[in-house]
């Protein structure tokens, strides 16, 4: 299954690991921040609705 990368195996694999790793970090960070912002906003909106 794994293609034969020859003598360049380490740099090719490193490229994919680094790139995908960075993308995953970015996506996870964005999603987590989005969840937090959404939850915070909902809490405030719910509280304001109860108060009103």
């Amino acid at each position, binding site marked *: 299954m794994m293609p034969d990368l020859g003598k360049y195996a380490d740099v090719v694999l490193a490229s994919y690991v*680094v790139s995908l790793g960075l993308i995953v970090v970015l*996506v996870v960070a964005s999603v987590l921040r989005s969840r937090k912002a959404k939850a915070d906003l909902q809490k405030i909106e719910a509280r304001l609705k109860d108060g009103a």
Partner: protein
Amino acid sequence: MSIWKYANPVTFIRTTDRLLPWLSVAAVLCLATGLIWGFFFTPDDFRQGSTVKIIYLHVPSALMAINIWLMMLVASLVWIVRRHHVSALAARAAAPIGATMTVIALATGALWGQPMWGTWWVWDPRLTSFLILFLFYLGYIALWSAIEDDDTAADLTSILCLVGSVFAILSRYAVNFWNQGLHQGASVMRAGAITGSDTEEKVSNVFFYPMAVSALGFILLFVALVFLRTQTEIRTRRARALLAREQST
């Protein structure tokens, strides 16, 4: 209704909420297709061996690094001219993505260059330009986070983006000139020619199609991320606005 209705924060969130699932799925599909196709099912290049597989990451990320800055420039102009808050926030949301793309382009470029040049880093004009672009991203992000007042921050970063764009183009020419001046006709220039757009003209279709799919995946991923991050910025601002209203009454 014009396109500007999407500049309304509520409309923006409602619309993007509908689009986001589709965009995310499409982005993952395209990225997976392009990268798996490229990684497993393309032959090695006769000259560069298996390092050619880096192209599926390097070229799309480099394209995005530049295009995201252009998108920020357009968004900044829209903010300056029409003062739509969503526009300013979209520029803010895009900057970290652009910085990440620049890092990916730099890292893959250096990794690609290592077997070709025998060293991790060469002050090749293209790599150097991306390093400078990365500095611009850093400055832009830092200025956004340093200023408390939101509108002031949006104004100042927009102007920085405009001025920065001019200087980024100047740097590009300067760097080109600088290295050619040093290494006229030297091996570095030829080695430098294998990265980036010069390759695109030479790459055969075997490499080009998976790369194009991967590039499409990068674009879709960027759009999805910008939507998500802009939503976050809008929600944060809305939460703050609600609290401010509560305190003022």
